[in-house]
């Protein structure tokens, strides 16, 4: 299955990646090769097979009591922020 440039652009948009035209072309060919390869999965009969979502049985991972534990201070949490305002992360304009 070959992917078109439009499909690659659509996926890049969903993944929040801005790509140049050259990149789109390169990815189109590489992704087509990979998608072709993983197409192998279509040749198996999987009717009646349950999906494996996790390697371990989720039952064996009990939930903890819902109590507040130790956490980062606002200062620690913001230490790597590219921009901040007081105890908040600052982001560019959201409403276009």
């Amino acid at each position, binding site marked *: 299955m070959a992917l078109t440039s439009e499909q690659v652009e659509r*996926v890049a948009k969903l993944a*929040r990646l801005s790509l140049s035209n050259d990149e789109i072309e390169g990815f189109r060919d590489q992704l087509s090769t990979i998608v072709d390869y*993983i197409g192998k999965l279509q040749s198996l009969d999987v009717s009646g097979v349950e999906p494996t979502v996790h*390697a*371990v049985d989720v039952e064996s991972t009990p939930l903890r009591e819902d109590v507040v534990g130790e956490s*980062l201070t606002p200062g620690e*949490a913001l230490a790597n922020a590219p921009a901040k305002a007081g105890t908040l992360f600052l982001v560019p304009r959201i409403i276009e």
Partner: protein
Amino acid sequence: MKPTDLTLAGLAASLGRKELSSLEATQACLERIEATDPKIGAFLHVDAEGALAQARASDERRAMGASLGPLDGVPVALKDIFCTKGIPTTCGSKILEGFVPPFDSSHVIRLAQAGAVMVGKLNMDEFAMGSSNETSAYGPCRNPWDLERTPGGSSGGSAAAVAARQVFGTLGTDTGGSIRQPAAFSGVTGIKPTYGRCSRYGVIAFASSLDQVGPFGRTAEDCALLLQAIAGRDPMDSTSLDVPVPDWASGLSSASVKGMRLGVPKEYFVEGVDPEVEAAVRAAMKRLEELGAELVPVELPHTEYGISTYYVVAPAECSSNLARFDGVRYGLSERQEGGLREMYFRTRAGGFGPEVKRRIMIGTWALSSGYYDAYYLRAQKVRTLIKRDFEEAFRKVDAIVTPTTPTAAFRLGERADDPLQMYLADVFTLACNLAGLPGMSLPCGFTSGGLPIGMQLLGKPLDEATLFRVGAAYQAVTDWHERAPQEVA
């Protein structure tokens, strides 16, 4: 004999007998790194000052008779995927350049509690996506046995540092073979434990249902000493299993494989496996037979679907995990013009390398409407079939023996422009992650060109003990693991 020639267990004994101090061992490591790393590129960050301070503290504890155990004073290093409080953590990516974590991963905390000396952070494929360490944004790491070749990936630095005797042990992560494949390429021992054996807290996530932390060492015993220090339930990771951690290391010196049944899957001895690799692994199996193990043919019929399954499941999970790199809270943030949306698009385009973008896109595509059922859901069902293959095989055998990789280390650049060829390097390692099993790679020979060859042992869930036993018994009668690369002698 230089201090750095000792194994981890050897150093622990030497420290215990006070023949060496931790300070001497740590200084020896720092000197060795300085002498060899310009050629190898295993380290992204060396914390000499911190390491020397930890070494002095360890020596003081020992002098007072308050040693913390076998790892106390032992210099180790970590793949740069582990968050280290106050020490830069890049995950091999430009998007995390300058990131200094405000907290330690559970493994960093547990190693510190055991007294280990943390020397630095190791090179890796960007976000652990790669099989050669070439996708690192900070330059490749080279194989100490042949500087023109890859040490393997994604934990390339973790394997190369042990091979080059720069530190006594390292930690890596393994999502589809990222511990075992570099261990094989670099001629060291490495184990990926059962999924859930170790916490994933503080480990930058790639594919959450597959990621697992594990150690590298020169021997199975060294790996056991490291793994038992970091394994066990962690309240910070609900997928870490609440099961006791055995003392794997004790008794290994008298480990025996007598009466053990070792499975040989025909699907792992097929065309495409380098004849020298196959010959070395077959000779190792014969050796195990001479030691009293029984070789039993087993079948893993869905092996050929492993790569396709993995390259749907892992990218799907990565596309979701890597959504957090958006320029808001840490790392690169491109916000010169435009609004929030432009910041997302530009930050991710500028911060991620091509392989990471490729995987995010494959995953996004496999999860997108119209393809989800045909690819993602189907891959999860095939994952069940792969798991069942192993359950069936383990009814008959105690462990399974295979080559770790189809070939020895390839040349840097050889597969860099051919993603699919690169993916095929993981053909024998990724089923183990899909099934959640423990897997170990240990040195079992060399090619005629002098490159290490690795043998893989796969075990039943939570049965790391058998892998350590087989590894220790094999290493007691062979010396592959004792050889040192001459390129960086």
